[in-house]
């Protein structure tokens, strides 16, 4: 009888542990679900290729870690669904910048980190862009690195000429 009780206790402890783990997993799912429908990323097409990093949600220090994106979407260094250069931060740019305007507007521009920061501040002051929070740093790093200035001199050579017989 006593031994059985010991066994029961052990079984109950395991059950409790399982229940706790279940609750924690449930919590993860709920947090994840909330994150998925939050205003910044309500575009369902983005969720097709963006998977959230659960560790970010759980970390009490909340050190921001970049959003993963599916490596199958990368071809020739480009993130194919968005056409942007595939690098850490591309998902944040797609989610935040692409929410209001065409990403072509980002792609065709070139600026330093300070230049990109200025554009963000301008959009926040006049165009209803939200606070980018912890994502701002990674967005600026991505933009300055991949869409940074280039020196084209006083005038470039004519490029991309398609020759044809007149």
């Amino acid at each position, binding site marked *: 009888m006593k031994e059985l009780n010991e066994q029961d206790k052990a079984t109950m402890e395991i059950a409790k542990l399982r229940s706790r783990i279940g609750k924690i997993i449930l919590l993860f799912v709920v947090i994840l679900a909330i994150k998925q429908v939050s205003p910044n990323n309500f575009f369902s097409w983005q969720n097709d290729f963006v998977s959230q990093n659960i560790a970010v949600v759980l970390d009490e220090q909340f050190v921001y870690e970049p959003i993963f994106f599916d490596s199958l979407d990368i071809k020739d260094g480009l993130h194919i669904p968005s056409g942007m250069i595939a690098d850490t931060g591309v998902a944040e740019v797609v989610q935040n910048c692409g929410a209001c*305007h065409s990403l072509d*507007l980002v792609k065709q*521009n070139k600026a330093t980190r300070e230049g990109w920061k200025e554009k963000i501040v301008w959009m926040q002051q006049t165009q209803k862009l939200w606070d980018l929070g912890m994502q701002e740093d990674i967005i600026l790093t991505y933009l300055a690195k991949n869409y940074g200035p280039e020196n084209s001199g006083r005038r470039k050579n004519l490029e991309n*000429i398609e020759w044809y017989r*007149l």
Partner: protein
Amino acid sequence: MSNKNSSRRKFITKSALAAFATMLGSKIVFGENMPEGVAPIGLEDIGSGDVVPGKSKELIVLGNQPWNAETPPHLLDDEITPADLFFVRNNGLPPEKFDLEKWTLTIDGESANQSKTFTLKELYTTFKHYTYNITIECAGNGRAEFNPSASGQQWQLGAVGCCKWTGVRLKDVLNAVGVKNDAVYIGYYGADLHLSKDPTKVVISRGVSIKKAMEDETLLAWGMNDTTIPIMNGYPLRLVCGGWPASVSGKWLTRISVRNKVHDGEKMLGQAYRMPKYPVQPGAIVPDEDFEIIESLPIKSLITYPKTGALVTKGNSLVVKGHAWAGDLSVSAVHVSIDFGVTWKLCELSDAVNRFAWQRFTSKIELPEKGYYEIWARATDSNGKSQPMVIPGWNPKGYLNNACHRIAVKQM
């Protein structure tokens, strides 16, 4: 253009034409050539895709939210730019529903004698109609060439076109309403929606001095190239004001305020459509108070024939054609060079059919020997100012690049 949507186009065309005819009188002819893909009653998804609704697939699309697209120079060879080739510069989202019976234009403001609202039919039947060929160019056309890069839509060469615009003179309408002596400026408002989808936010509200507004060629236009204006270009009513940045020619027009001060609407202030008052070093940070509003655009030209990349056989001469335009002024001469600006040849130049119409230049050139050439075109305005061969004064927002156009050719 393909005809894949021709049956639906016919349906749309008929109903659009019928609506206009009912509304605006039997004489009306526009409405019959509504381009393929345009649905005036909101059938199109206007926020996606890589061909602008109602526009040629040949346009170079800079973005689809908002839609911005420019014309390759060789497709601008027509005297009157075809509607489906005319560039698109949107700041917000065009309206999706158009009820022509309910569409109105209100004239108001501190310097208007009264606030008065006109239906389209009233505008059409009350005032005399005028038609002009008017060149419209985005002030940021050519921005892509600035170094360091200037922020904004990276227009290359083709944010310009010259269409045949029909409407009533703004001055006739303003005079009918009554304008006070202290009037300084007009400011327009349109029916487009801000990208944030906030209906209370004004997308763009610019304007011109009262003097410019009162010019004969400043129109409230409903017609473009003898038909209605494409939705992307401001259907059913827009301002057309030649010589100044295209952004003063407000689209989907609903209101014009007569102001007793320089209009302070969206994109009138700060650095928008403004240049530094003095030349600045490339990359300089310029305080807002040192900017001034851009008015007349500088002298410019485009080579529209041949298309860049032509391989020419030895012994054949080459005809070069294009257009030149000069803001509020006229074009007095165009020269072309085949030796990187060492020598210049004077072109034949036609007169403008009316003020603000672009002027045709042509020249026959001989390439002396086998090799790579660039043909450069350089126009001069009626004040003697010419286009620079390198990129002109850098400015933070990248406006007014009127550097001469270059095309590449080879003699085989």
